[in-house]
């Protein structure tokens, strides 16, 4: 787990982010607590979502804004994720794309 995390951190280290203090991702803990599948823990390419005790927490600052979490959550999870665009000027800034 540690090495997997560090591989991902290493990859994310190549990216440029303008980090917003407030999160563009909102988690409905009541919904997530009763989610049997939690696809967000698997499909997010940036490992934004983690389970801490009973809660799902989102490290929004690593978000690549791909949209995978929301689609998987709505169709295979329990629709506990609300995803907005980050505030203007914030979030991922692709230099190659």
């Amino acid at each position, binding site marked *: 787990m540690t090495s*997997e995390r560090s*591989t*991902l951190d290493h*990859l*994310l280290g*190549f*990216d440029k982010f*303008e980090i917003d203090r407030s999160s563009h991702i909102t988690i409905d803990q009541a919904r997530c607590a009763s989610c049997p*599948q939690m*696809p967000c823990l*698997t*499909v*997010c*390419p*940036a*490992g934004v979502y983690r389970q801490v005790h009973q809660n799902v927490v989102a490290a929004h600052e690593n978000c*690549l*804004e*791909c*949209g*995978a979490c*929301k*689609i*998987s959550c*709505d*169709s*295979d999870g329990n629709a506990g994720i609300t*995803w*907005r*665009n*980050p*505030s*203007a*000027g914030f*979030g*991922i*800034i*692709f*230099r*190659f*794309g």
Partner: protein
Amino acid sequence: MEEFEVAVIGAGPAGATAAYLLAKSGLSVLLIERGTYPGSKNVSGGLIYTEVLGQVYPGFWEEAPIERPITGHDIVLLGGDAAVALSFRKAAVESAAPPHNAYSVLRARFDPWLAGRAEAAGATLVTGVTVDKLVIENDRVVGVQAGPDRVAANVVVDAEGTRALLLRQARLIGPFHSGEVSLGIKEVIRLPEGTIHERFLCSRQTGTALTMIGHTLGVSGGGFLYTNRDSLSVGVVAKLDSLHRSGRRPHEILGEFKAHPFVSRLVEGGEVVEYSAQTVHQGGLHHSSTLCGDGYVVVGSAARLILNNLFTLRGMDLAVVSGVAAAQAVLEAHRRNDFSASALSVYRDYLRSTPVYQDMETFRGARSVLSNRRFFEIYPDLACAVTEELFAVHKTPSTKLFRILRDKAKGKVSGLDLVRDAAALARVLAI
């Protein structure tokens, strides 16, 4: 409140092209981009096919920041530690004058140029502005809201991209399903130009695109590798539902893919400079009912205009095509001063008459193959094993191809499935 004749959401290839053509025709156009510069939120594989691009932007290859002409195509089946490849090269293609059939591009470089063309034609480009919602009055889109600012427009061109947040928020389209969406993840790997030329047997005027199937940890999808000028774009596209079921993490799959001996030798010594991700809709004609409505048209990835014929995944050129068709429809509506759904529905007709749209019809059977796990889990290995046996010399007498295939397939796939799948593949590609 500001007023424009047209408000375009998103300065990607679809939005920028619509804005460019409408501004060129004299309409007042606002082109709104949420990134700090066009392309800064955008990810593609990224090949752009140039047929339509060249019609809209004559001579673009002289000035647009393209990476490399793509003149060679490889289709590669990856087995455990083996590979079978089908490789296309043609001298006349390699020495042909531009425009070439396709170019590799990096969106953060390419999109600013496209948006610049729209600006030069008279469109007003604003960057770092996020549209929060479509303004809807009496079931009609009448403008956009960005923070405290409201912009009124006769027509809104929605080019917001694959996630289509605004359309979903306004309930103009339904929710997406993980079975109809793939996740693309990609690394841009810097490699000296000379090394690329040696490794891919190309020159400054030629380049290669590899489409790879297999070695994706059993997840339905495939890999790609494109040569840029002094970097490679390497990635994996995985079906979202299959990815979820596998329990494997996207970066693990990309890591495994890059570690395959056939892939690792191509990227060896390179330096990763960016890691990116993007969702890709399966696309197809069944979504065409959501292309337009009262006061709006939807273009590009937001309209799920994606063509996957198993070997190419096209989005950017469909985006340009839809931008052209939308601009034609909006001009027509402008002449009649009627921006109703029925007036704008000519957009659908224009789009349907284009070759790329008809390609979507031609290759619509691809999804049956794409959702068949045997194509990703079994056949690449099988192809490698059979090919190995074809060339092997043993102490015992050799057998013919069919017998080899039967022996190697034993216990992995039934003869009936094999025949069925071959027929399915033939239906998509050949017949």
